[in-house]
């Protein structure tokens, strides 16, 4: 993929099946929720024209629902409805309610009083007045409400991919996390087109004259049901186990693509955001997920990592990387930093992460407790012969490591420390290092190889065969190119990993990814 710049059309052509599925899902999600919203909103709107005292509270509540940020609303849904289509549809229909209720109410109350009086005086009963007079005359206004709701839903439905409900959001958010513009556009352009097309079509319906509206009123529900059914067509296939992968994992060679090509793993897969994936696995909504091997949630949700026996996930061993200048300037620093080497393995790191992420202990406390328990902690010498600048990326594990190094330096040397934590992603951290803004920070071998050195696929293939060859390669290259030295690895490997619930993996006797594949192929 790196050989030449792929155009958007090439990408869309290549991903045509996925694009078609996602578009259908998107249309389906939009219209199922719209359909249900209309089923609720129309009667409710009519009801409050009869009980005007209730119109204030009902419109007020619908208005409040509208103001809840979409991501938050999806978040609220998960504990109640889990992940997948259900919470997405409920969230979407809540957004669609306000315009439908409000326009039904406005439309019906706006019907000429003389016409209503005439209808009653001619001897129509209340249902005849409603269906023959009020609804037909309010229809243009009601349709305007449905039109607004449709456009809102097409937009909000992109977020459904966060909770594994599919739709064009899979491409959009996958593209954002992979920094792949073509992928973003392949999702965003069809989504925008859908909004424009539906808006246009509904505007035509709205302008039809009264006569024809009678027919379209009957056609509308049929059309809605038809469009809604799109959602179920692609999801009709099933599987024995369900995997939930992040959008990023889906698009990576050292992710789902590798699983398919190297292991031949075929599993029913849904795309889901990292934020809810672990919990969904815990709640048995998903069986296999893509996570990070030292994530605290591994422990919190009782998950187990499957062994990557064919080595498709490059090793991500953590080690401090330091400017060579700083090593010369601060003698004794290297020895101090290497005190941590080999002390933290995967399960220890997972536990430390668990403490900050789930027990909400501060990184300082977790770092100190660990050093004390391993007899590495010494009280600060209050040194002042120089200031070592420590950097860290913006997540828990890095904070813990930065704090440990800070304590080690203060306790073992006469240097003082300034920490610059939260330096965003890899690029910001590494730029700070090469530009002499910080002296060192903890980095991962895989990141060094793929993100910083941007090694060719061939090289990656060669050097990721073992953790040592990866380490050696990045060490050489960093020294050559940036005059930055990789110190000894801390011990843990925070790599991509497939995980399952411990209990299930044990029951099915799955320990490696190959086991998983065999299990899926059996029967």
């Amino acid at each position, binding site marked *: 993929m790196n050989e030449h710049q792929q155009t958007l059309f090439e990408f869309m052509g290549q991903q045509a099946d996925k694009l078609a599925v996602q578009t259908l899902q998107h249309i389906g999600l939009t219209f199922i929720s719209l359909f249900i919203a209309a089923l609720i909103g129309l009667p409710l709107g009519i009801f409050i024209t009869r009980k005007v005292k209730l119109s204030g509270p009902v419109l007020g509540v619908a208005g409040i629902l509208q103001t809840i940020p979409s991501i938050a609303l999806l978040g609220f849904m998960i504990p109640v409805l889990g992940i997948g289509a259900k919470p997405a549809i409920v969230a979407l229909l809540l957004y669609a309610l306000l315009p439908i209720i409000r326009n039904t109410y406005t439309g019906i109350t706006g019907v000429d009083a*003389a016409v209503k009086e005439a209808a009653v005086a*001619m001897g*129509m009963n209340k249902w005849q007045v409603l269906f023959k007079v009020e609804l037909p005359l309010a229809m243009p206004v009601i349709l305007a409400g449905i039109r607004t709701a449709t456009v809102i839903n097409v937009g909000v439905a992109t977020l459904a991919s966060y909770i594994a409900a599919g739709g064009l959001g899979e491409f959009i958010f996958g593209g954002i996390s992979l920094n792949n513009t073509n992928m973003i556009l392949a999702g965003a352009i069809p989504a925008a087109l859908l909004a424009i097309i539906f808006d246009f079509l509904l505007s035509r319906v709205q302008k039809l004259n009264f006569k024809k509206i009678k027919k379209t009123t009957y056609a509308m529900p049929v059309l809605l049901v038809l469009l809604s059914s799109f959602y179920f067509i692609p999801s009709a296939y099933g599987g024995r186990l369900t995997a939930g992968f992040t959008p990023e994992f889906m698009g990576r060679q050292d992710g789902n693509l590798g699983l398919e090509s190297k292991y031949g793993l075929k599993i029913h897969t849904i795309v889901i955001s990292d934020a809810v994936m672990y919990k969904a696995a815990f709640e048995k909504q998903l069986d296999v997920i893509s996570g990070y091997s030292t994530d605290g949630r591994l422990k919190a949700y009782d998950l187990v990592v499957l062994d990557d026996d064919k080595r498709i996930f490059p090793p991500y061993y953590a080690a401090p990387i330091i400017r060579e200048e700083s090593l010369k300037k601060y003698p004794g620093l290297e020895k101090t930093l290497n005190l941590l080497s080999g002390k933290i393995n995967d399960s220890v790191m997972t536990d430390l992460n668990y403490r900050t992420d789930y027990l909400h202990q501060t990184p300082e406390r977790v770092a100190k407790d660990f050093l004390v328990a391993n007899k590495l902690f010494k009280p600060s010498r209050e040194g002042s012969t120089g200031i070592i600048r420590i950097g860290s990326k913006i997540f828990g594990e890095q904070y813990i490591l930065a704090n440990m190094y800070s304590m080690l330096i203060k306790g073992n040397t006469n240097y003082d420390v300034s920490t610059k934590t939260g330096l965003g992603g890899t690029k910001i951290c590494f730029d700070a290092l090469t530009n002499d803004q910080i002296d060192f920070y903890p980095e991962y071998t895989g990141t060094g190889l793929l993100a910083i050195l941007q090694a060719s696929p061939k090289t990656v293939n060669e050097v990721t065969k073992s953790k040592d060859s990866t380490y050696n390669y990045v060490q050489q290259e960093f020294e050559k190119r940036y005059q930055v030295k990789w110190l000894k690895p801390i011990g843990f490997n925070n790599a991509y990993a497939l995980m399952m619930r411990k209990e299930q993996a044990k029951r099915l006797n799955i320990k490696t990814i190959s086991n998983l594949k065999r299990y899926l192929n059996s029967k």
Partner: protein
Amino acid sequence: MIKVDGISKQFGKVKAVDAISFEVQEQENMILLGTSGCGKTTTLKMINRLIEPSGGKIFINKKNILDQPPEILRRGIGYVLQNNGLFPHYTVAENIALVPQLLKWDKKKTEGRTAELMEKLHLDKSYLHVYPNELSGGQQQRIGLARALVSDPPVLLMDEPFGALDNVTRSNIHKEFKALDELKRKTIIMVTHDVQEAFELGDRICLMDKGRIIQSGTPAELLFSPANKFVEDFLKDQRLQLEFKAVKLVDVWELLPNPPKKAKTPALPAGTDLWTALESFKFGKAETVNIQKDDEVKAATFEELMAAFYQYKNKQGHE
């Protein structure tokens, strides 16, 4: 035919209608006259239960109107609204067919009746398939009338039916209204604030104020024997014209000097009001109009008619 017995309507603290009673005879045209807010429209709407009275009873053909479901009651009472209230999403034909549809008439019967009414109301058949907003105000009002008449209900309620029309259109419609045979068979209660209209169309008038009936009687009774100063003041404008409209030829028949002859020549019927008779003079030399009462005809000049009118009026004042 219609008996209103002490009905009242209260909106919150306001008494819109205060224990009023009146009766309308079969085929009579009764006018509820008064300024806006006098309770005349509320009274009218209580008769087809668009408004439910707070007290009192209403009988149509001796049957209490509360004894049947309001929808059924209404299907038997024609109703004409000031702003016609035609359904904008129905064609003219569909608007007229509204009540037949509710009564489940078959299509042929509805079509035949619609065509008949269109002709009687001087509406072109090509209008059947257009929407009301494509028609003029006068045409719309005629469609409204056709809709009310289509099932030939014995009772017709009209709420300021000609109030929204310009003077020329209104006077044309008044003429048609009086000439329409369908209406002659009906018991009509009409609400208006227009005194001229009341005198022109009404057999009897109920003059209302502040929810009460101040006086009820024929136009002549109201004019020549007003119950109080309010009635007198109400009729003060254009009094002479009102008097001409209130007095019928039959009232002055005895006062005309010429001896009656056997009817041969075309003549004005005796029920014609004086105003119409006077209007028919073309002011030629020694011109007369022929007036027919039963099978006798009297000829009268303009001067003779005027003299008879003054004699009649003086007599009324002394009663």
